[in-house]
Structures are given as C-alpha cells and as structure tokens.
C-alpha cells in the first residue's frame, strides 16, 4: 500500500494552506510530519484522510486515484490531540466500534478487540468508561480504535501533546514497536524535532504549507537542504553566523578570523551563513582548530539534566546546549568553542553548500 500526493494545493477562502506538496509514502513506512504550529500539518493529514478535498493535485492510493473519495469510503483512521472516544461506551465498545460499524462478525470483533487491548496494555480496563480513565489511558483507547481496524493509513495528529513527559517517552517507544510489523502507512504530526528524532522512520519538514524536505529522519536531520530545514529540525534552533570567506580565512564581521580547515577550503570567496548546532559548541576546546569566542552569559536555562546556555558577544547571540546542570552568573564572561569541522555553510539564499564531512554521504 502506498500513498502518493501529487502537487497538492489546498486553498481556503483565498488563503493557501497547502502549497504544491508532492510526497510519496512507502508501504509500511512510519512518517513524521514535522512543522511549527500552523505549518499545515493537520490540513495535510485531513487531505490524506479524505476529510478535505485538495483544490489542485491528485492523491493516489495503491495507484488508484482517490482524490475525491470521501473519508467514509476510505480505510483510514486517525488519533487526535484531544482524547476522542465515545463517552457512553466502555473501552471495549469504543475499540470495537469501528469493527461493528464495518459489520465484522461478533467472534472476530471480540478476538481483535482483545488482541488490540493486549497490545496497548488495556486488558484490565476494558469494562471502564472513558471518563473513568487517566489521560494516557484515554489516549490508548483512542489508539485502540485507530489500530483495531487494519486501516491502510493511520494518522496521528500530535497525539502526545496533552500527556506528561514520562508517558510520552513510553508511548513513542511502543508506537515504534507497534509499527515495525504493520503494513499500514503511519503518519505522525509533531512540532518537536526531538520527537521526530526519537520516532525515526522518515520525516517530512513542513513550513508555511510547503514541503521543505522529505527523507529518512537521520538524513533530513544531518543533511538539511537549506537553512530553514536546519533551523526547524533542531531544538534549540541551529546557531547561524554570517561570515565572509576570502582566501583561506573566514571573517565574522571583519574582526573574528579563523582559518579554513581542509574541507571548508572548497568554499568560493564570498558571503556565507555558517550553521553550528547548539550541542556542538563546547566550553573547552575539543581540537586545536576550534574557534574560541569570548562571550558573556545572558541566561542559563536548566531543563531536566540539560542546560541551554544563552550567550552573546557584540556580534552574535548563540545558544549552547550542554549536558548536565551548569550554573552561570548573568553577564559572566566565558569562552565558548566552535568546531569548524562540524559547521554547515549556507549561501546567501540559504541553500546548503557545505555539510560537515563526517555526515556527508553517510
């Protein structure tokens, strides 16, 4: 089963929500739709489901054109951000509902409901009602309804947003496991780059209704095609430093120089934007090539066992992602080190011209 979107446009009241998106999702693939709020993730999913009809373009399912086919005639299922279940039905009946509506035989229903419940660790809760369950259990019930019917496409629209941190990690792992053996195409929308990385599979980057990049998740992460992809697919966003290449040197704002290492020498002279991930900047030099920048601290943001250190000098603002808890005083003067061999370079238009050599073609 494959799902192909061909040059899809979706225009609502003159506003373009989806702009010329073409996408080919392979059978059995797990796909992450990554994009900020209002990027068009939900709209794209609604189009895939058949809840909306694209303004232009075609949607093909296993080679058949299903563009105008309404959702009732397709075999899809969807899990929402809100926990959507039938309030007056038990967990058992909720999970059974798609099968009952499809007219499946009673014994078969029972077998599949119990199988699905077991998969989701809900066996003990089958006789409960949704309002008697915790948020996580309600969402499991909703997933049960989506998984039980062997849909060709299963859509997850930010399903874990309303759950707490621990539960989200648990769910993600289970989801990956569940889909290893399934033939259905899974599409999972999220705003969080880290969630996309944790889920793996393939990732489609969506920005303001346009598809920026699609490919294996690691590929999209390591080899962004442009600066927007790089910014969107890192948390905190990748640091961007405008610099001038002349001869064998890079100059940042005419004052900070560093020599081009072997692989950056290929860059033609001119203006570039250098990207360096927050997690690649260090507090001590890791190699003799590292570029030391004296900066002062704005804020050390401690999140769990990580520290996001916001620093600046008179040229740039940088974010440094450090493992462990580090405390800094505001305005404390420190030196941070940027590794040239881990830098990306983008041209003026933002297209990538240099990818760190250890990632290239990996």
């Amino acid at each position, binding site marked *: 089963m494959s799902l192909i979107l061909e040059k899809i446009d979706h225009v609502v009241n003159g506003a373009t929500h989806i702009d010329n998106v073409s996408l080919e999702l392979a059978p059995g693939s797990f796909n992450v739709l990554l994009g900020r709020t209002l990027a068009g993730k939900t709209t794209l999913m*609604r189009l895939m*489901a058949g*809840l909306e009809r694209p303004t232009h373009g075609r949607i093909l399912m296993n080679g058949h054109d299903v563009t105008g086919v309404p*959702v*009732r005639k397709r075999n*899809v*299922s*969807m899990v*929402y*951000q*809100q926990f*959507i279940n*039938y*309030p*007056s*039905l*038990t967990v058992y*009946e909720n999970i059974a*509902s*798609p099968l009952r*509506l*499809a007219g499946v035989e009673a014994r078969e229903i029972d077998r599949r409901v119990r199988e699905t419940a077991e998969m989701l660790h809900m066996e003990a809760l089958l006789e409960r*009602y949704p*309002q*008697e369950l915790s948020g996580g259990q309600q969402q499991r019930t909703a997933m049960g*309804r989506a998984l039980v019917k062997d849909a060709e496409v299963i859509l997850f629209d930010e399903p874990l947003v309303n759950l707490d941190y621990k539960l989200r990690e648990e769910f993600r792992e289970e989801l990956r496991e569940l889909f290893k053996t399934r033939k259905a195409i899974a599409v999972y929308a999220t705003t969080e780059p880290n969630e996309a990385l944790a889920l793996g599979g393939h990732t489609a980057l969506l920005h303001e209704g346009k598809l920026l990049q699609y490919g294996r998740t690691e590929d999209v992460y390591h080899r962004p095609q442009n600066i927007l992809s790089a910014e969107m697919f890192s948390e905190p966003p990748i640091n961007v430093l405008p610099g001038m290449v002349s001869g064998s040197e890079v100059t940042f704002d005419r004052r900070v120089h560093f020599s081009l290492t072997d692989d950056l020498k290929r860059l033609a002279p001119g203006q570039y934007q250098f990207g360096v991930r927050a997690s690649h900047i260090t507090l001590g030099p890791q190699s003799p090539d590292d570029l030391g920048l004296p900066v002062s601290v704005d804020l050390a943001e401690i999140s769990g066992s990580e520290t996001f250190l916001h620093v600046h000098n008179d040229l740039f603002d940088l974010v440094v992602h450090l493992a462990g808890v580090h405390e800094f005083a505001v305005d404390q003067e420190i030196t941070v080190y940027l590794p040239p061999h881990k830098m990306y370079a983008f041209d003026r238009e933002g297209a990538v011209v240099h990818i760190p050599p250890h990632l290239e073609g990996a």
Partner: protein
Amino acid sequence: MNKVRNNHAWWLILPMLLLVAFSAIIPLMTVVNYSVQDVFDPYTRFFTGTEWFQVMLNDPALQAALLRQFAFSLTILAIEVPLGIGIALIMPKQGWQASAVLILVTLPLLIPWNVVGSIWQIFTRGDIGLMGWGLRELGYGYNITRSPADAWATIVLMDVWHWTPLIALLCYSGLRAIPEAYYQAARIDRASKWAVFRFIQLPKLTNVLVIGILLRFMHSFMIYAEPFVLTGGGPGSSTTFLSQSLTTMAIGQQDLGPSAAFSLIYFLIILLVSWVFYTAIMHRQKDPTTQGER
C-alpha cells in the same frame, strides 16, 4: 504543634445568616405559623396543630388539581425536551443565519407570562382569533371555554411555544461545546447520523438536559398566569392547577390557615420531586453502567 483555633471567624458568616434569614427563613416561618393556627381576625386565633394539613391532603378538589398538575408537567416535558433537542440539532451553526435563528428562537422567552396568556386568549377566540377562527372555518368546533380537551391542548401548546426555546438554547450551547474532532472521528469510523447523535451528541448533552428538565419541571409545576388569563382554570375546573387553587383559597376566600398548610405541602412536593429527579440523573451519570446500551 497545637493549632491555635480562632473561633472569632464564625462571626464572618453572620451577614450571610442574616441575609438568608430575611430572604427565606422568616417568610417561610410566617407561613408555618399560619399553617398551625385558625385565624379569625388579628386578635383572635386558635392553635390547630396538624388539622389544616389533614384537611388539605384529604380535599378531593386539591387532589384532582395535583394530579392535573403532574399530568401537565409530564406532558410538556415529554414534548418540549425532544422538540428542543431537535430544534437545536437543525439550527445553523455559523454565519448570520445562526444569529438570526437564535434571535427568532429566543423571542417567545422574552414575553411576560400574562402577556403570553393574553396573546393566546385572543389567538384562540372564535370570532377574531386566527387559530380559533381558522379551526372553526375548517369545520372543527374549537372552543376552549366549553371543551376541556380543547382548553388542555391549547394550554399545552402555549407552554410548548413559550418554553421549548429554552431547551433548544441550552442544547444548542451544549452542542457547540463538542469539539469538531468528535464528528471527524465519527466520520472516519463511518458512523451514521443516528450513531453520532446517540453516542456523541446525546451523552454530551446530558448535563445541560438535566438543568433544562429541572428548570422546566419546577417552572411548569408552578404555572399560574397563563392558564389564569387564557381559561381562568375552566371549563369547570379542568385546567385549574395547584397555584390557582391556592390563590383562590388564600386571596379569594381569605382562608389563611388552610392555604398556608397547602403552600407548605406544595413547596415540599416541588422540593421532593426536584431532589429525586436530580439525584436520579446525577447517580446515573456517576454510574455510567446504565448509560450504554450493552
């Protein structure tokens, strides 16, 4: 460590107690006071104990009025609740049509009770009333002053016209509160319209329906002005409800003792029925095993 208890805080509820005393307890006690005495004039009164209560409970006219009252309240609930839900379901959801329909539906709610009675009184007249005249022209001998059935049907129809909008409005707001995702999920499940109503909309409406039914029950149980203006309780006593019996007794005949006893009984009946009703529905909600079909 011992907690220091400061009992002065009790003084803080004093204003509230005073307020409740003046608004509820003192007026109610006056009624209680009358109900256990036989009052001849301001200086002559006798203590009668429970006598008035016994007399009232055994009065066949009042028993008949009570039965009529229950029949009326149950009839209008049976019509107004399904009708209100139905109207709420077909009301437009957005745009200017929604505002327009909302105003049109609300209109009857804004008309005072006795005006409603007058409107229907004229509406049903055989000579100049549109409905009265129309029905007669169609060959039906419609007459609310002679036929109890006509009078009954008209009062029920009047109440339905006046108060169904309340149920419709409550349900409309309840329906608007259901997230769009529920309907989408149902479409993905290929659920029928009926299934959407039965398993999404109706369960989600339970709360507003409880409020609506309670309000309508209490309201209709106390109905006075409309039948008083429309039929005056007739023909005979066929549309004499409890509140009208009470007014006749208290104001018309100045029977203070019996009417006080009757007021208390009336009050307790409303309280009891509302309580039973509320508890039953709330219990049903807490114990959802009674909600599903299976």
